[in-house]
C-alpha cells in the first residue's frame, strides 16, 4: 500500500508531511533547498514551463505579471465575489470569466484550482523524491470556515495534480490532532488559527473512551478573508501614500516597485515580532532613500482593528458551543500571523490563560494532516475525529426566504431529507435552489447549486420525491433523490453555482500532465547539457595532455568527430539526442581514458 501524505495548502506557504509509525511522530518533508515551507507562489516562465515555490517567489519582483501569490483567496469564488480582492491583490482576472474565475499568467489563462494544482504537484514531487516512490493519495487541509464551493475547488485541485484527496481536514482540527499527539490533552480546547489569508476558531472537546481518544469539534467560526495578508495590504497602502506625498513617487503603475515595497514591509513586520523597533529603508527610483523608523507600539496601533476582527467569530464559536471563555482548558495558537505579539496578548487576555505555542505554527497544520493520513491508512485504531459543518445548509422557499435544513456546527456526515411534490397537474419539473449561510434571505446566502427535479406528468400532488442532502466527512454536499412510491433512485444532475464540471477537471488533469511532462523534459535537458559540458571539458583536457601525443591519427579523428556532433546536439533541445551522443563520445574515448589513467598510475 502506498503512503498517504498530509498537505497544508496555505495562502502564503504550503507544506507536505508524513507520519512515521516507527517514531510515532509526524514530520515535514523538506524540498530541494532543505526548506519545509514551499511558498504558495506560481510563475509561468516565458518558455512555457511552470515554476513553483521559492524560485517563483523571487520572480514576484522580476516578473510580477507572470507570477501569482495568495491564489487560495480565489478558490471556489465567482468574479463578482472577488472585486474587493482586486483592489488589494495584483490578480489579473480575465474579464470573460463566467462562474469560475480565470487568472492570467503572461498570456495564458488558468483557473484557481489549476494554479493550486501546480503547488500540490510540486509538493507531490518533494514527497516522491523523499520516499523514492510514487505518491498519489493525500489528506489536504482547508480553512474550517471554507464553504462547499471552496472545498470542492480544493478537491478538484488535488485531482488535477494527480492526487486522490482521501479527506479534506479543517486546519484548526488538524492542529488539534498534532497537539494531541505531541502531548496528551483532555478537556475543552480552543484553536485560534490566523494564517496568511484566513482566520478560523474551533472549539473542541477531547474525550478519552475505552476505544481511544475522540476529538469532537463542538463549534467553528471564522473569516475566509482575514489574515496576515490584510496586515501587509494595510501597510502597503499606507506607505504608498506616504512615499507619494513625501517624494512624489507613485507606485501604483509600477508592479515591481510595489512588490519590492511589500516585501520590505513584511520584513519589518517580522522584525517587530522579535524586537521593539525596526527601520524601513527603501531606495526610490529617483535616487532618494525612504526611511521610516517603526516601533512595535506604532505597528500594533495600526493592526489593532484587524486583530479585533477575529474576536467576533471567537465569541460566536463560544456561544454556539454554549461555553464561556473561562470554561476552556487549553488554547492553541496556529498560523504564522499568531507570532505577532499583539495577537498572543489579545488571545491570552480574552481566555485568561497563556496559549500553547510549542509546535511551529507554520508546520502544525501539515503535521496534523499527516496524523489524519495515518488514521486513514491504518483504520481508526486509537484516534477518531468528529468534525462539523461550519455553515447552515438551506433551501430557498417562497418569497426568497431560506429554510435551514442542516444547522451550522452539525457533526458531519450529516443529512436532511425533503419531500417534494407538484403543485399543478402535469407539472414536469420542480426547481430546487440549495444555499449555505446564516442569513434569512436567499440573496444574502451563498448559492451552492440550482437544479430541476424532473417529474413524470401526473395529477398535482401525486408525485412524491424525496431529496436527500448529505454533507460528507469532507464538508462537501451530495444530493440524491428517490421516488417514494416506487422506492427507485431518481436521476439528478446538479450543476454547482461556482465550480468546475467533471469534464473540465478531467481536461485540466490531462493538461497538467502535459505540463508535468514538459517540466520533466526540461529537467532532463538541463541535466543532459550539464553532463555534456563535463565530458567535453574532460575530453579536451585529456587530449591536451603530453602523454597522448602518440595517439593514432585515426583515433584522434574519431574523437574529434564525436566531440563536434555532441557540441551540435547540446546546442539543440533534444535531451535524448544529447544522451546518445554523450554515449558515443564515451565510447570513442575509452582507449584515451585508459591511456591517461595508466599514465597517471605510473606517475604516482
Amino acid at each position, binding site marked *: 500500500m502506498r503512503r498517504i501524505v498530509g498537505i497544508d495548502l496555505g495562502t502564503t506557504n504550503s507544506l507536505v508531511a508524513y507520519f512515521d509509525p516507527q517514531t510515532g511522530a509526524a514530520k515535514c518533508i523538506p524540498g530541494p533547498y532543505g526548506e519545509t515551507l514551499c511558498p504558495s507562489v506560481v510563475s509561468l516562465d516565458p518558455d512555457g514551463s511552470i515554476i513553483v515555490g521559492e524560485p517563483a517567489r523571487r520572480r514576484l519582483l522580476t516578473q510580477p505579471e507572470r507570477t501569482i501569490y495568495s491564489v487560495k483567496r480565489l478558490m471556489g469564488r465567482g468574479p463578482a465575489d472577488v472585486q474587493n480582492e482586486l483592489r488589494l491583490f495584483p490578480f489579473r482576472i480575465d474579464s470573460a470569466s463566467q462562474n469560475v474565475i480565470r487568472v492570467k499568467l503572461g498570456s495564458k489563462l488558468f483557473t484557481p484550482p489549476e494554479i493550486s494544482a501546480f503547488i500540490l504537484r510540486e509538493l507531490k514531487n518533494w514527497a516522491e523524491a523523499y520516499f523514492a516512490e510514487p505518491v498519489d493519495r493525500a489528506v489536504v487541509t482547508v480553512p474550517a470556515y471554507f464553504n462547499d464551493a471552496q472545498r470542492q475547488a480544493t478537491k478538484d485541485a488535488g485531482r488535477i495534480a494527480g492526487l486522490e484527496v482521501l479527506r479534506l481536514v479543517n486546519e484548526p482540527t488538524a492542529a488539534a490532532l498534532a497537539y494531541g499527539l505531541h502531548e496528551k490533552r483532555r478537556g475543552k480546547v480552543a484553536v485560534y488559527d490566523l494564517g496568511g489569508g484566513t482566520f478560523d476558531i474551533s472549539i473542541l472537546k477531547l474525550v478519552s473512551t475505552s476505544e481511544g481518544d475522540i476529538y469532537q469539534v463542538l463549534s467553528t467560526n471564522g473569516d475566509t478573508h482575514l489574515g496576515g495578508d490584510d496586515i501587509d495590504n494595510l501597510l502597503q497602502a499606507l506607505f504608498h501614500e506616504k512615499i507619494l506625498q513625501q517624494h512624489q513617487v507613485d507606485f501604483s503603475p509600477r508592479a515591481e516597485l510595489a512588490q519590492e515595497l511589500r516585501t520590505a514591509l513584511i520584513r519589518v513586520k517580522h522584525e517587530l515580532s522579535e524586537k521593539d523597533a525596526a527601520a524601513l529603508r527603501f531606495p526610490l527610483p529617483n535616487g532618494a532613500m525612504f526611511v521610516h523608523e517603526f516601533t512595535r507600539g506604532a505597528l500594533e496601533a495600526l493592526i489593532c482593528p484587524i486583530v479585533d476582527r477575529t474576536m467576533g467569530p471567537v465569541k460566536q464559536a463560544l456561544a454556539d458551543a454554549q461555553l464561556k471563555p473561562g470554561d476552556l482548558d487549553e488554547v492553541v495558537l496556529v498560523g504564522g500571523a499568531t507570532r505577532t505579539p499583539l495577537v498572543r496578548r489579545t488571545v491570552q487576555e480574552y481566555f485568561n490563560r497563556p496559549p500553547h505555542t510549542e509546535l511551529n505554527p507554520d508546520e502544525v497544520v501539515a503535521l496534523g494532516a499527516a496524523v489524519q493520513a495515518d488514521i486513514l491508512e491504518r483504520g*481508526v485504531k486509537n484516534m477518531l475525529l468528529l468534525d462539523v459543518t461550519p455553515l447552515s445548509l438551506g433551501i430557498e422557499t417562497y418569497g426568497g426566504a431560506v429554510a435551514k435544513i442542516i444547522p451550522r456546527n452539525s457533526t458531519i456526515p450529516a*443529512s436532511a431529507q425533503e419531500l417534494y411534490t407538484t403543485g399543478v397537474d402535469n407539472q414536469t419539473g420542480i426547481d430546487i435552489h440549495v444555499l449555505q449561510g446564516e442569513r434569512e434571505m436567499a440573496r444574502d446566502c451563498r448559492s451552492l447549486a440550482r437544479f430541476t427535479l424532473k417529474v413524470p406528468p401526473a395529477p398535482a400532488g401525486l408525485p412524491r420525491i424525496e431529496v436527500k442532502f448529505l454533507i460528507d466527512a469532507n464538508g462537501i454536499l451530495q444530493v440524491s433523490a428517490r421516488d417514494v412510491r416506487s422506492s427507485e433512485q431518481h436521476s439528478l444532475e446538479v450543476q454547482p453555482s461556482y465550480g468546475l464540471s467533471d469534464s473540465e477537471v478531467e481536461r485540466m488533469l490531462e493538461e497538467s500532465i502535459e505540463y508535468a511532462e514538459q517540466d520533466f523534459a526540461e529537467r532532463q535537458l538541463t541535466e543532459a547539457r550539464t553532463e555534456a559540458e563535463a565530458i567535453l571539458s574532460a575530453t579536451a583536457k585529456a587530449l591536451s595532455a603530453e602523454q597522448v601525443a602518440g595517439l593514432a591519427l585515426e583515433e584522434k579523428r574519431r574523437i574529434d568527430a564525436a566531440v563536434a556532433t555532441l557540441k551540435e546536439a547540446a546546442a539543440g533541445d533534444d535531451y535524448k539526442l544529447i544522451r546518445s551522443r554523450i554515449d558515443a563520445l564515451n565510447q570513442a574515448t575509452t582507449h584515451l581514458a585508459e591511456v591517461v589513467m595508466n599514465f597517471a598510475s605510473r606517475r604516482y
Partner: protein
Amino acid sequence: MSATRTASMSPLICWSCRERALGPHFCSNCGKIQQLPRDVDYFAFFGLPRKLWIEGAELEKKFLQLSWQLHPDNFVHATEREKDLSLERSSQLNDAYRTLREPVSRVEYLLAIEGARKEGEQKQQAPPELLEEVFGLNESLDELREAKAGGGDLSALKTRLEAAENNFQEKLAEVDEQLQGIAREWDAALDNNVENVARNKLMARMNDLLNRRSYIRNLVRNVAAELTG
C-alpha cells in the same frame, strides 16, 4: 405504529453473507455494516424507547461508541458498498444525536414520527392570550424603526423594548417548563400503557406548546435583531 413499541431492530438478511443478521448495525454473522431498515427511527437507532426523558451523558456515550464503529474513517479500504453504507449510517447517527440531544427538537421529532405534529394553521397569528402584549411590542418596534430612520432619540425606546424582550424570554422559559411537565406525563403514560386517546391528548398539548414556543421565539429574535441592528 404503536407508540409503546420499544426499539427492536427488525431482523434482516445481510447483503453480504445472506445470513439473517441480528446485530443492530453490523451483521451478527459476518460483521459487515448493514443498511438501516426504513422503519427504524432515531430512538430505535440508539436502542431507546420513544420516551422523552433521555439521560444526556448516557446518550453521548452511545453516540461516541457508535461513532467509532460507523465513521467513514473506518472504511477507507473497504468496498464501495461499505463506504456508501458507512456514509449513510454515520450521517443518520449524527442526525439522530443532533435531534435527540435537545429536549425541544426531541419532542418535535416524536410528534413527527407519531404523525401528531401540526404546525399552526396561521403561523403568524399570535396566541389569543398574548395578543395585547404582542400588539404593544409591534408598536414599539415600529417606533424604533421610525426613530432610527428619522434620527430621533432611541434610548427610551430601546429600554422599553429590552424590557419587552426579557418579558418574552421569561414566557419562553415558562413554555419550556410546561413542555417538560407534559414530557414527564408522556413517559408515565407509556410506562402505564395508557390508551391511545389519552396519549393523543398529550401529543396535542405538546403540539400546541411547540407552536406557541416557535411564535414567541420568532418574536424574541426579531426584537433582538432590531435592537442590535
